[in-house]
Every structure is written in structure tokens, then in C-alpha cells.
């Protein structure tokens, strides 16, 4: 069922892993001159993923190199160690897999879901959804939920799917999208535990990639807090989102919205905020700018959005605190309180925020 071209398309598959095993190559072999092209291809995989978020194609006839370079690239990325770069690599590989899967035959997509990832998935025998969509597949809700946990589009919400007897109806393209998540997670798992004993003969390649990762991620990273943002005063929820964004974690849509609105409320400009999101593995400059401008009220509804209140944060699972923040109901209120800004009520006037004239002394009655 899997020809060489298929193995090259899906080097993460159980079939490809079996093929690689059957070739019986050792690490020493890979470092040798004859197998140089495999190592070179592996380095290119990693490099292109880090720099451009994509995996290059292969020349016809070079399937063998393509297949073997995949586990080598994973090993190299394991030694590189940089988590942001690892996420970018995993995402690029996963997106590559999605591209092939969505075009492939239903049998092969099913086989990879079941055989490689152990998903409970089956052909649906042509269930038609109420929207007139044709579901070719059904996947068990537990697998579905695991794979869609980080997908933000409302169409993935379980309550907006046809769920019956524990099975969720899916089109082939949607199943391919779930498999992208499986590939992503599997790669992250594997790069997080590199083989023991260090890079050895691969040291030069690894250090080149490390340098690349550092400069690429540094461009994105925003090490010093933007002027005006007081990290220590941030509520735990925003602090965690902020640090998550900087370390390259993909935030949920709600998480991004909350953080953007919070940073805007804290007085940061659009450019500063966009830079905060630059490290995300799935950073898309145009989209981010659009979203930020939207929240600033420059687009769409022309309303400047406020960050969500604590209740809402909790509903969306963005509140890390079990013990609460001392009765605060709004993340912004927490920040203002910590900064020593006070809420005062002017007689007859609206509620305003007033900064104390001088820094408050510990026992000041100011």
C-alpha cells in the first residue's frame, strides 16, 4: 500500500519507521561521506523550517534520501534544544503532512490515523450532515477533543459537530487537519528527548542550526519588557499569556485577544504588541496586525475592546489561579491596583483613575 513516494510524503508513518529500521543504519554510517546527502537534506529540513516555516520538496528519484533525512532532522533538532525552534520545525513538518494528506486517498488517510497514531477512526459510510456536508469519516470524540484542543476556529467546537454514539463526523480534509495535530505532537515529543550522549560527529551541523535558531528567534523575541509595561504588576493570567507568547507558544484566539486588549489597556502601542506575538510558532504578520488593529478599534466595529473580566477568563480556561487574586474581578483592576493607581469617584463625575502624586510610602496616608 505504501510505495516509496508515499513513504517520502509520510516519513513519520509507522510504515516509514519500519522502512528506516530495515535499512539498519547507525549514527556512524550517517556521519560517513557516502551518506552525506542524507545529513545535508536533514539539515536543510531543519534550516528551512526555522527560517521560513516550510519543508523543501525533493527531487524525483531521491525518495530514499527524503525518507531517511526525516529521523535525522528530528535528532538534530533534539540536539539544538531551542524550544521555539523545535515548535517551528514541528509545525512546518506537520503542515507539510497536512498538504499531502488532504489530497490523498481516503484509505491512506485512514491507515495513517489508525496505524501510525492509534486513533479510533472509521469510514462513515456516507453520513450526510445537516449542512449538506458529506462526512467520509468518523472519529471517536476523545481523539477528536485531543486533536482540536488547540484549534481555535468555532467550527471545531464539539457542540457544533454532528456527534452520535461517541463518533464525530469529519470530511477527509478535516481528518487530515487532525492528523496535522498528531504529527505536530509526535514530533515535539520526539525532539524533546534527544538520544543520550550528545551530538558527537553531528556537532558542526547542530551548532550551525543553533546559531540559526538563536538569530531567527531573537529577531522575534522581545526580551526586555516594552517601556511602560510593569511585569511585576501583571496579574498571573496575563503574565502567563505574555510569557507564553514570548516563548513561542501558540495562544488560543481568546488568549491572544485578552492579552492584546490588556497590553493596549496598559498603554502599549500596536507595534509593540505585534512584536510580542512574533515568536509564536504560527506567527503570521499580516493576520496579527489585522487582529491587533481590530482590537484597537481601527478596523471593523470601531470599538476599542477592553480585556475580558475574570469570570470570562475563567470560562475560557485562561485563569491559572485557584485561590483568586484577592477578590479582584478584572485583570486590569489587578494591574492598576498593583501599580498604585487608585480608583476614585469624583463627585457627580464618572469613575476615573488617578495616580497618586508621589510614590506611595509603605505607611503613607497620602
Amino acid at each position, binding site marked *: 500500500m505504501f510505495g516509496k513516494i508515499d513513504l517520502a510524503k509520510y516519513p513519520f508513518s509507522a510504515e516509514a519507521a519500519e522502512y528506516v529500521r530495515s535499512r539498519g543504519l547507525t549514527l556512524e554510517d550517517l556521519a560517513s561521506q557516502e551518506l552525506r546527502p542524507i545529513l545535508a537534506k536533514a539539515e536543510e529540513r531543519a534550516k528551512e523550517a526555522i527560517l521560513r516555516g516550510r519543508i523543501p520538496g525533493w527531487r524525483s528519484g531521491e525518495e530514499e534520501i527524503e525518507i531517511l533525512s526525516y529521523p535525522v532532522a528530528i535528532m538534530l533538532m533534539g540536539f539544538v534544544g531551542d524550544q521555539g525552534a523545535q515548535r517551528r520545525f514541528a509545525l512546518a513538518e506537520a503542515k507539510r503532512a497536512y498538504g499531502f494528506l488532504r489530497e490523498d486517498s481516503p484509505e491512506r488517510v485512514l491507515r495513517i490515523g489508525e496505524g501510525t497514531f492509534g486513533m479510533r477512526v472509521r469510514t462513515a459510510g456516507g453520513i450526510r450532515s445537516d*449542512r449538506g456536508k458529506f462526512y467520509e469519516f468518523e472519529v471517536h470524540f476523545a481523539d477528536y477533543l485531543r486533536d482540536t484542543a488547540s484549534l481555535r476556529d468555532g467550527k471545531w467546537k464539539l*457542540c457544533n459537530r454532528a456527534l*452520535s454514539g461517541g463518533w464525530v463526523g469529519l470530511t477527509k480534509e478535516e481528518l487530515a487537519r487532525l492528523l496535522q495535530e498528531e504529527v505536530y505532537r509526535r514530533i515535539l515529543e520526539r525532539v524533546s528527548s534527544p538520544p543520550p550522549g550528545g551530538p558527537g560527529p553531528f556537532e558542526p551541523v547542530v551548532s550551525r542550526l543553533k546559531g540559526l535558531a538563536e538569530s531567527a528567534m531573537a529577531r522575534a523575541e522581545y526580551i526586555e519588557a516594552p517601556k511602560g509595561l510593569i511585569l511585576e504588576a501583571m496579574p498571573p493570567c496575563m503574565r502567563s499569556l505574555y510569557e507564553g507568547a514570548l516563548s513561542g507558544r501558540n495562544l488560543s484566539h481568546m488568549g491572544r485577544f485578552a492579552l492584546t486588549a490588556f497590553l493596549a489597556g496598559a498603554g502599549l502601542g500596536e507595534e509593540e504588541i505585534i512584536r510580542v506575538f512574533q515568536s509564536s510558532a504560527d506567527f503570521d504578520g499580516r493576520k496579527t496586525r489585522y487582529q491587533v488593529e481590530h482590537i484597537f478599534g481601527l478596523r471593523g466595529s470601531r470599538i476599542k475592546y477592553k480585556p475580558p473580566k475574570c469570570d470570562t477568563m475563567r470560562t475560557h480556561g485562561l485563569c491559572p489561579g485557584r485561590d483568586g487574586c484577592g477578590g479582584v474581578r478584572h485583570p486590569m483592576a489587578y494591574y492598576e491596583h498593583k501599580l498604585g493607581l487608585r480608583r476614585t469617584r469624583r463627585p457627580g463625575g464618572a469613575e476615573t483613575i488617578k495616580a497618586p502624586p508621589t510614590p506611595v510610602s509603605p505607611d503613607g496616608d497620602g
Partner: protein
Amino acid sequence: MAMDERGRALALSFAKRKFGEYYASGPPRLEPPSELIRREFGFLFFGEKFMLRHRSFSSAEELRAFLKEKVPSDAYHSTALYRDPGAEMENKGWIGADLCFDIDADHLEAPCKFEHDRWSCECGATGAGPAPRACPKCGAEGLKEEAWMCESCLERAKDELLKLIEILCSDFGIAYSDMSAYFSGHRGYHLHVRSEAVLRMGESERREIVDYLTGVGVDPSAHGFSISSGGPAPSPSSPGWAGRISMAITEILTRCSEEELRAIGLAPRAVRAILGERDSLLRDWLDGGGWGLRRRVGGKGWGAILKRAIEMASVKIDTVVTTDIHRLIRLPGSLNGKTGLVVMPLGVDGIEDFEPFTDAAAFEGEERVHVVEAPRLKLGGESFGPYRDETVTLPASAALLLICKGRAYPAVN
């Protein structure tokens, strides 16, 4: 009217003695959880404020002996399984957790709450029903609530439980044999799902299940209920939310009164149209694509109907209990310290006929108690009270209930 120091002491020692008798009798309804050695246990004791946590037991016998010797007022076990359940939280080693649901009358809207629930403030103000956010008299927050339990509240909770079980079974494909239902011993019901399929789910996955059940984020247009575009409306037998919304709308069309239709938010003209053409609209809804209804009520009315339909079809569960994967839940067959009633295991098919106040009674015989104040109480077909500062003879479980609730103390002579 408050109870004095002496009354409180009498009540406490009486309750402790009765609970002791219960655990000493080797209660057959006590149901140690599966994989007991992997569970954390927690206990509350009479007259003590703090919970004893992080206890583990090596066998059901050891647990029974503990209950008999220490006589806790409340006993709990973790929904989670741990490698080392007796360790501190960080070192327990989470393996997985049952999927648990709590349906509490507190979360249901029941008109009878205003008959039997009270709130009070330190300033002396009191009122009927659930506590407001702040005292209307002095503005203080965090008011004390005294929730009472009544048959109609519990009946509502039971309906929700049955709805929950139905959805878990038909939508999620969870077998009855993987579900255990319990009366909480107070104001609601618990449902535990134990199955490989759910054991390892994390909090975000469980939250999605909660959103599914409570209807949070349901987009009617994703299910074919747009006002204008798309095909005919889904039939009540469609899978998932499509079918549930369709079923609820069928119900609205079939049996909503004029008043109820207005409460949905429909304009008078739309209400008149539905009342006047009920049969034909219903036929059109079930067989004709449902365009008739959509046309009659207009865009706004259609939105209101959908909103109401989603609300009707959703299950009112306590969302925190289901998402928290480190939660403690009452030990089945133990006594609830707030009532002295048994945390009662119910077979899935025994739910409908379950009578909380009769079937969950732990004691027989009668007791003489002095009741400070209590609303009317129905027990096993009989009705007692209301009482105010009087000494009465009651069935033992009713007496214990009032004592646990702080409304009575044992009569001295």
C-alpha cells in the same frame, strides 16, 4: 431564631453518635470506589473546620475501619487516580480521572426557592430566596445563605440527571455500565463515568464536553438553522445538537402557552401566528422544511426561539466539578454531614423511582427533638411542620436532618 451553646453541643454529640451507629453497622450501601488504592481520600469531622486530606487506604476493609473508628461528618474520594495518592499534591503523580458531573438544585431556577431558602446579613437583614450579591440594607457582600431541600427542587435536579445520562449515552456513546449515579445526600445528584475513553482526558478536553452539555458556544447556523440560507431544518432525530434544537422547537410549537411564547421574546404578532396556526406550522416544521415558522416569526423572533431551544436542551451541570481533574467527590454510601442522609448509589434504571427522603434515610425509629425553626418537610409521603420553637417526635431521619441543618437539638426529657 438562633440556637444556644448548649443546644449546639447537644446536637453535635447526637449527630456524631448516630453517624457512629451507621458506620458501625457495616452499611451495605457503602461503595468503595474502583481502584481504591490509587485514590486520595478526604474527611471532615464534627466540630472541626479543616479537612483531613491526602489520605490513602490499601483496602476497602481499612477504609471501613477508619470510618467506624473516626466517624467523619463527611467523606470524600478523589475522582483522580494517582501513583501515590497519599503524597502532597505536586508529588501525587496523576494517572487519570473519572469524568464526574454534579447537578445541584442550587444551580437550577426553581420558584420554590423563595419558599424555603433564606439569606441573612450580619446587620440583621434577612430575606427569602437566593442571597443577593450585596445586602440591600447595609451593602455588605458575602451574605450567608441557608438553602433548604425540597422534593420539587430535587425533582428538577433529577430531570437534569436523566437528560445528562441520555446525552452521554446517545451522543457520546457511553455505556450505561460505565455510568454510576448517586444522590448527593443533600440538594442534587452526582454521575461518575468510568471508562478508558475518558480517563486520561485533560481539563481542556473536559471543558469541551461541559460546553457541549451546557450548550455554550452552540452556533445554530452550524447545524442548519439559518433564517434564510441552507436546506430544510434538521429533524428531531438528527444526531447531536441539530436534533436537540429541532426537538426543543417541536416542543415549543406543541405546548408553549401564550405567556411562555411571550417570555421567549416573541413579538405579539409572532405569538398570535403560532397560536393560530399551531398544527400547520408543526406539520411544516416536521415534514415541510420548517420555512413556515421562520417566515412567521421573522429574524429576531427566530433568534429568540433558537436561544430558548438551546437553553431547553442544555443540561444544567456544575461546570467546575467536571473540568477539575483533582477534585474530591462524596464517597458513595457515606453520610452527608449537612443532612444525615446517605450518599445513595442509584442504578441508572432506578433513578426515576428514587425518593430521596425515603430511600436515602439511614435510620429507623423515632426521635424527640426541639425544633427552633423549620419549614414544612415532606418525608415518605408524610408531611411535617412547619415548626417554630416546639418539641416534637419525628422519624429518626427527619430528626437527624433538622439537627444536621442546625434547626433542632435533641429534646432532653
